[in-house]
């Protein structure tokens, strides 16, 4: 099996599974600790953010009457999609730095650190989205989604986009800490353009075309088309978004491989 130092694909897969499991449990405790809510903060934190934003947007009357979109549902779908592409990337940006000592173990790889952090963020954001939606639907503040499959599709695309961006930015930090430093302002600037706080339909035509260059806008539009149905006109091209994600994923994978060669202690 390890006769000349080579190991089989399936054995490698088993090792990676073990490592991911170990990292996942470790990350949960190092991040959230055992005090008070502990691991539940994985869901609690994004929920608090979404609730806060929902309150703010409702108070500010971000959605004018007549659009037919209930503000709570608009805010929950919007802010949850931000969480999907932003948080995994931010977490992976600090991933190598914070987990470097663990890479001392030969079987713990840079990509495992990223997979773990992406998985945690996706789980956290998804649970927060589901919990809040159910809660507000129960209160009658949010409608039931028109087409659940489309919502899931949009959600999946946003997760893919977030994951590929996270790989790229996370691995980029091995080349220059500048990558992580620049990510924060970029994420901040992308927020208002990401389609979370507006529907593409509300923008002038020229702006629409510009905004639709950003892949995540397509995901949010698909998600909202699924949620609100034909109440509002949506603009998205999932083929385009998939191409962008595929391109980012390939670049990410390549940079991750190069990054693991550059790890130094």
């Amino acid at each position: 099996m390890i006769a000349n130092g080579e190991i089989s694909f399936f054995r490698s897969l088993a090792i990676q599974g073990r490592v991911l499991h170990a990292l996942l449990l470790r990350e949960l405790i190092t991040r959230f600790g055992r005090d008070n809510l502990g691991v539940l903060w994985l869901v609690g934190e994004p929920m608090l953010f979404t609730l806060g934003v929902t309150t703010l947007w409702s108070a500010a009357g971000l959605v004018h009457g007549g659009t037919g979109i209930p503000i709570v549902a608009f805010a929950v779908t919007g802010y949850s999609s931000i969480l999907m592409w932003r948080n995994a990337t931010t977490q992976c940006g600090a991933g190598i730095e914070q987990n470097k000592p663990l890479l001392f173990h030969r079987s713990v790889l840079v990509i495992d650190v990223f997979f773990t952090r992406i998985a945690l963020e996706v789980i956290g954001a998804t649970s927060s989205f589901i919990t809040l939606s159910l809660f507000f639907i129960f209160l009658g503040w949010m409608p039931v989604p028109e087409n659940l499959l489309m919502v899931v599709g949009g959600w999946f695309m946003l997760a893919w986009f977030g994951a590929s961006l996270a790989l790229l930015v996370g691995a980029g930090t091995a080349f220059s800490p500048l990558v992580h430093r620049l990510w924060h302002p970029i994420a901040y600037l992308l927020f208002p353009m990401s389609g979370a706080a507006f529907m593409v339909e509300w923008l002038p035509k020229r702006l629409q075309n510009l905004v639709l260059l950003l892949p995540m806008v397509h995901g949010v539009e698909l998600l909202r088309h699924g949620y609100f149905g034909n109440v509002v006109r949506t603009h998205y091209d999932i083929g385009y978004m998939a191409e962008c994600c595929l391109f980012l994923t390939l670049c990410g994978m390549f940079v991750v491989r190069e990054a693991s060669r550059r790890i130094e202690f």
Partner: protein
Amino acid sequence: MLSVEHISKVYETRRGPYKVLDDISFSLARGRNIGILGRNGAGKSTMIRLISGAESPTTGRIRRGMRVSWPLAFAGAFAGNLTGLDNLKFVCRVYGVPYKPLVPFIAEFTELGSFLREPVQHYSHGMMTRLAFALSMAIEFDCFLIDEAMIVGDARFHERCHYELFQKRKDRSFILVSHDPNTIRQYCENAVVLSEGRLFTFPSVDAAYAFYTETLERGPPIRAKEV
């Protein structure tokens, strides 16, 4: 069999690339051992990290035909808010070993008692080192990588480490880095010397020592080997 084939390691420094190891080859058969001598900065620890797989060589390759440990007693992977037990669990999960049967050994060796369930950030340096060493002993390897400088403690701790390594596991391979002539003479079958990025082999430990002493006397500290 562990074989190191033509490895070089270049680090980027502010003054440009710096070659720490230059075309190094050797192999170690299962059950055999070797000591590495070299003055400060000769690249001994770099070599240990490369062999463990923590870092990759710039060129060349390392074939590990046996299970090679991580650099022994490495404490850097401890997260402050994890307990000693959490750290044991993590290592066990990574290596696919059940942790429960190991708890008595860890508790006994580290002499931590109930502190094993306290966050590592409350540990003293000595407690940390004992835990790190005990974790390295918890997983069974065919070849141990030992950098003696990392195993700092009192005489009793040293004695216990030596017993665990060289008595209980004397059938295993190991690569030992040490400044102490007696340690290598006492435990190693043979020794090599790292000097100015190169590896020198000798027919006996004594011959290696003679050369090593000479490099020490030769004077000025290591020259920067710019590439």
